[in-house]
C-alpha cells in the first residue's frame, strides 16, 4: 500500500507529465538542470512536511476553513525552505530568486493536501507526498537538462556539446519551456501506452 502510494507519483500520477500541475516553476526555472534539481528538492521538502502536518491535524481542522489553514502551514514551510537556502546555498537561492517563495502557490502542494493528506493517515500521506516530490524533481531535472544541453551546450555546468555548437537560444526562452514540456509529455504518453500494451 505504502509503496504504491510512493510509486504512483513517479509515473502514473506524475505531477508534471500526467497531472500537469505546478506549471509556473516547471516552465520558469528549468533553464538549467541544477535549477530544476534545487527547485524540485525545495518543493519536495515543502510537500512532504506540509502533508505530514496536515494529515496529523486533519481531524481538528474545521472543514470551512481548511484551505486557509493549509495555506498558512504550506507558507510556513516555504519560508523555512527559502531562508534555509539563503543561509546555506546562497548562490542557488540567488539564481532561483522569487520562485522559491512562489512555491506557496504551487497547486501540486495544495492539491496533495486537499486530495490526500486531509483524508489519509500520516504514514500514507508521507509516502504519497514523497512520491509526488520525487516525481516533480525528476520531471524538472529532465526538462532542465534538455533545455540546458540544447540552449547552452552544458549539463549541470559541464560542457558536453562539441566545439562550435550553436546554442539554441530559444530553448532557454519561455517558448523553449513550452516546446520541451509538450514534447516530453508526448514521449511520456507514448512510453506509457507501450508499457500498458505489453502488460495487457
Amino acid at each position, binding site marked *: 500500500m505504502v509503496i504504491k502510494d510512493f510509486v504512483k507519483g513517479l509515473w502514473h500520477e506524475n505531477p508534471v507529465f500526467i497531472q500537469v500541475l505546478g506549471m509556473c516553476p516547471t516552465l*520558469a*526555472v528549468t*533553464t*538549467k538542470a541544477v*535549477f530544476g534539481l534545487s527547485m524540485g528538492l525545495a518543493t519536495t521538502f515543502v510537500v512532504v512536511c506540509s502533508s505530514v502536518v496536515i494529515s496529523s491535524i486533519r481531524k*481538528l*481542522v*474545521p472543514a*470551512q*476553513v481548511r484551505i*486557509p*489553514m493549509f495555506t*498558512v*502551514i504550506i*507558507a*510556513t514551510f516555504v*519560508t*523555512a525552505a527559502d*531562508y*534555509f537556502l*539563503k*543561509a*546555506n546555498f*546562497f548562490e542557488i537561492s*540567488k*539564481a*532561483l*530568486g*522569487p520562485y522559491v517563495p512562489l512555491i506557496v502557490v504551487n497547486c501540486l502542494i495544495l492539491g496533495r493536501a486537499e486530495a490526500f493528506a486531509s483524508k489519509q493517515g500520516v504514514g500514507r500521506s508521507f509516502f504519497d507526498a514523497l512520491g509526488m516530490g520525487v516525481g516533480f524533481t525528476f520531471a524538472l531535472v529532465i526538462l532542465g537538462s534538455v*533545455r540546458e544541453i540544447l*540552449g*547552452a551546450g552544458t549539463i549541470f555546468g559541464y560542457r558536453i556539446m562539441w566545439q562550435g555548437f550553436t546554442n539554441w*537560444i530559444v530553448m*532557454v*526562452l519561455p517558448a523553449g519551456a513550452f516546446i520541451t514540456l509538450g514534447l516530453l509529455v508526448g514521449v511520456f504518453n507514448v512510453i506509457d501506452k507501450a508499457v500498458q500494451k505489453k502488460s495487457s
Partner: protein
Amino acid sequence: MGNNFLAKIFNNEIVRIIFALVLVGVLSGAVLVFIYNYSMPKIKVNIQKETEKAINTIFPGAASNSPTKDKGVYSVKDSTGKVIGYAFIAEGNGYQGLIKLLAGADAKISILKGIEVLESSETPGLGAEINTESFQKQFVGLPLTHDIEYVKNQKPEKPYQIEAITGATISSRAVVNILNGKINEIKKTLK
C-alpha cells in the same frame, strides 16, 4: 454553570473556526521566529562576504576598505594605506525586480574598474546572464568621462560602449542606467 457556558461557547462553530485559525497562525509565527533566528545571522554573513568578495575581485590590490560618509560608497586602500579607488553600491529596477550592483572606480573616478552583481531576479537563462563574467568584464576599463552606452547584436565601436545580452536588452539597459545614475551622483559628492 461556568462549565456549561464554556462548553456552549466552544460548541459554537464560529468560535471553533476562529480558534483553529488563530492557533495555526500563532504556531506558524512561532516556528518562523526560530527559523529567522537561525538563518538571519548566516544570511547577513553571506551578504557581507559577498560585498567583500566583490570589492576584492574588482580591486585585486585591495588591502582594506572602509565606508565613506556617503551610504553604500567604500573607499578602497592598498597595503600602504593609499586610496586606490572607490567601490559603490548602485541599485535600481531591472526587468523583473531590483538589481543591486557593486562597481568600482579609480581614485579620480575617471575609469570603471569593474562591476559585480550582488542581487538580481532577472529571468534565469536570459537577464540573469548579467551575472556572468563575460558580461561583466565588458565594463572593466570603461572611461567615465562619457555616459556608458549599450549596443545590440554587434561589437561595441566606441570605448564607452558595451554589448547588450541577446534576448535581454532590458536587463542590460537597466545595468547601464543604474551605473550611469550612480556614477554621476558620486562624481558630484566625492569631488
